[in-house]
C-alpha cells in the first residue's frame, strides 16, 4: 500500500495508508475481492447511510431511544467486517458497529428493537459468533482477547475482530487487553475507528500520542494506521492482520482514521464543538462517494444499479420497521428472566410478588 493522505486529525501530521483516494482513484494495490462482494460491501455501506436518516427520524418521533449514527464511518466498519471469515470468526462490537453486526447475521429489526429498549433486541444470531454491543467503553476488549485466547487454547478455528473508538483507547481496559493479547499471542484483530472525537473531546485533548496505532509497539505487536474512509485500505489491513493471527503470529492493532459526518448520537449537538472545516473535510472524504466513483469507473455501477440499491435499502429498513412495529410489548415479568440459571428463593419471591402486583393493576 502507498502512504499518501495527511490526516486532518490532531496536532501531528500523520501518514496513513491509502488505496482509494478522495477522488475515487486507485493509489495503491487493490485487495483481491470478487465483483459481487464489492457490490455487497457497497450496498451495506449505503444501508448504513440510509438507516441513519431513518433512525434519527424515528428517534425524533419518540419511537427509538438514543441512536448512534455511523455516517462517515461506513468504510471502517464494513471494510473490516468483510475481511473476516463469517464461517469461523467472531465479532465483539462497541455500540456503533451496527453494520458489521448485520454482516454477522443480526436482523435489522432486532437492532431496532434493541435501540427501542425492547428485551427481544438482545437476541443474538444462533451461530454464537456475534457478541452483544458493548456500552462501557473498551470493556469488551478483554472479552475479545479471552474469546480469541480460548479458541487458540482449545484448538478451535477462528479469529476475533473487535472494534472501538479513539476515546475507548484511553481506557485502562484497552491497555490491559492489548497487553494480555500480546503476552499470550492471541488471534485477535483490534480495529480502532479514530474519528477524532470522543463525543466533544478532540483527539489532541485525549492523548499526547501521535496515533493510537503507535501504542501497539508498547505491547509487542504491530500497529498500523490506515485511511478509515477508504474501504480497500481498511479491508487490506484487516485481511493481513487476520492472516497473521491465523498463522499464529498474534494480534494486530489497526487504527482506521475516519470522519464522523453527523453527531456522536441523537443526544448530542456537534455544532457546539465541531469546527466548520472538520465538517467540510468529512464531506470531502466521504467513503461512499469515492467508492461509488471507483465502482462506476470499473463499469460496476450505474444509475440503474444505484436506483435498485436505494430501493433495496429502503425495503430492508421498511420491513424492519414493520417487524418492529408488529412486535408486541414485552411481558413485564421478563425482567426476572435470565438473571441466573437457577433463581434462588429470594428472587423467586420477588417475582411472585411482582406478578401479583401486575395482576391487580
Amino acid at each position, binding site marked *: 500500500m502507498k502512504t499518501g493522505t495527511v490526516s486532518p486529525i490532531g496536532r501531528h501530521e500523520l501518514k496513513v495508508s491509502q488505496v482509494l483516494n478522495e477522488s475515487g482513484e486507485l493509489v495503491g494495490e487493490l485487495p483481491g475481492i470478487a465483483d459481487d462482494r464489492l457490490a455487497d460491501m457497497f450496498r451495506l455501506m449505503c444501508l448504513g447511510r440510509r438507516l441513519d436518516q431513518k433512525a434519527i427520524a424515528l428517534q425524533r418521533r419518540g419511537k427509538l431511544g438514543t441512536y448512534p449514527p455511523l455516517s462517515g464511518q461506513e468504510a471502517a466498519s464494513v471494510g473490516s467486517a468483510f475481511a473476516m471469515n463469517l464461517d469461523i470468526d467472531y465479532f465483539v462490537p462497541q455500540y456503533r458497529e451496527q453494520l458489521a453486526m448485520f454482516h454477522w447475521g443480526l436482523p435489522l429489526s432486532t437492532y431496532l428493537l434493541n435501540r427501542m429498549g425492547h428485551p427481544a433486541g438482545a437476541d443474538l444470531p444462533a451461530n454464537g459468533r456475534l457478541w452483544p454491543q458493548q456500552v462501557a467503553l473498551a470493556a469488551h476488549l478483554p472479552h475479545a482477547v479471552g*474469546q480469541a485466547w480460548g479458541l487458540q487454547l482449545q484448538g478451535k478455528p477462528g479469529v476475533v475482530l473487535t472494534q472501538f473508538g479513539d476515546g475507548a483507547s484511553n481506557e485502562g481496559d484497552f491497555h*490491559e*487487553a492489548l497487553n494480555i493479547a500480546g503476552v*499470550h499471542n492471541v488471534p485477535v484483530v483490534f480495529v480502532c475507528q479514530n474519528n477524532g472525537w470522543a463525543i466533544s473531546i478532540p483527539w489532541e485533548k485525549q492523548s499526547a500520542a501521535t496515533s493510537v496505532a503507535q501504542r501497539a509497539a508498547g505491547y509487542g505487536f504491530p500497529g498500523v494506521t490506515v485511511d478509515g474512509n477508504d474501504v480497500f485500505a481498511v479491508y487490506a489491513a484487516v485481511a493481513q492482520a487476520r492472516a497473521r493471527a491465523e498463522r499464529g503470529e498474534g494480534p494486530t492493532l489497526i487504527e482506521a482514521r475516519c470522519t464522523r459526518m453527523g453527531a456522536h448520537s441523537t443526544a448530542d449537538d456537534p455544532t457546539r464543538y465541531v469546527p466548520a472545516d472538520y465538517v467540510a473535510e468529512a464531506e470531502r472524504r466521504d467513503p461512499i462517494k469515492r467508492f461509488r466513483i471507483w465502482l462506476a469507473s470499473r463499469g460496476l455501477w450505474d444509475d440503474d444499479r444505484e436506483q435498485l440499491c436505494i430501493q433495496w435499502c429502503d425495503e430492508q429498513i421498511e420491513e424492519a420497521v414493520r417487524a418492529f412495529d408488529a412486535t408486541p410489548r414485552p411481558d413485564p415479568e421478563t425482567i426476572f428472566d435470565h438473571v441466573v440459571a437457577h433463581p*434462588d428463593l429470594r428472587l423467586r419471591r420477588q417475582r411472585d410478588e411482582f406478578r401479583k402486583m401486575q395482576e391487580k393493576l
Partner: protein
Amino acid sequence: MSTMTVVESIRRTLDEEMARDERVIVLGEDVGQSGGVFRATDGLQAKYGKSRVFDMPVSEAGIIGTSIGLAASGLIPVVEMQFLGFTQQAFHQVGNQLARMRYRTRGSLTMPVTIRAPYGGGVRTPELHSDAFEALFAHSPGLRLIAPATAADARGMLAAAIRDPDPVFMLEPLRGYRLVRDEVPDGDHVVPFGKARIARAGRDVTLIAWSAMVQVALEAAKLAAEEGTDVEVIDLRSLVPLDTDTIRDAVKQTGRVVIVQESPLSGGFASEVAASVANDAFLYLKAPVCRVSGYDTPYPVPHLEDHYIPDAQRVLRGIRSTLNF
C-alpha cells in the same frame, strides 16, 4: 474424612475439579510456578501444565475481562484475585460485565466463571490487602457471593462454584487459611448455595457471622456460656443467595440477634441481614438487632487493626446489650 486447613482444602478441590473436567483452567497473578502467594494453587501448573494454569500480567480488569471471553469460548475459568482489595481495580468487569452477561444476552452467553479472593485482615498485611467489601459484590445481580468459614465448606462450596453455570465470587478467610483446620469429607463433596449452617445451637441469642468472623462468634459464644448465656451461632456461608429462612427460624426461637462483620458498619452486608430480620421476624424480636462491626474508617494500619476487627470481647458486649435491653 481428613483433617486439613482451609488453604489445603482449596488446593485439593482445585486439583480434583481440574482432574474431573478438562475445561477447568486456573488463572491469576503468580498462580503458576509460584503456586499463588498463599500457595492455594501450588503444584497445579506442574501437574496440569502451562496450558491450563496461567500466570497473568498484573492486570485485574484484564484478568476478569479475559475470563469472560474464555468462558464464552467454552472453558471454565477459575480466577485467583491476589487480594480482595485489588478486585476494586476490576470491579466494573465483575459487576457490570461478568455478572450481567446472561441477562444482557437473554441466556445466550453464560458465564461459568469462579473468582476466588482472600478477604479480611488480622495478619498484619500492608495497606489495601485486608479490606472487606463484600457488600459491593452482593449488590451485583447475577453474581453468587459465598464466604465459607471452614475447610469442609471451602471444599464443598468451591466445587459447587466451579460446577455452577453462573459466575460465583468466593471470599476466602485470609486469616483462617492456615489457622482454621477441620474435618473435610472425602469423595464428592458439594455444598449447595443458599443454605446457612448452624455452627452452634443455643436458645438465648442468635449470632450471625460469615467467613473469619464465624471463629470470633464461636469464641464469644464460649465466653457467654461462662456467663450462663446459651448462644446460637449461624454461619451464613452464602451471602447471595441469602438463607433468610434459617435466619427467620432462629430469630423466632431466640428473639435476639447479633450480627458480626469485619467490614465498615454503614452500608455493610450486616445491614442487609438486619433488614431481613426486621422484615421476616419483627414481632419475635425482644431487642433491637445489634451489629458488631468494623468502623466507618479505612482499614487501619497493622498496629491498630486488632482494635478495628471485631473480637470475642466486642461480640460479647453486643450479646450483653441485646440481653439487657
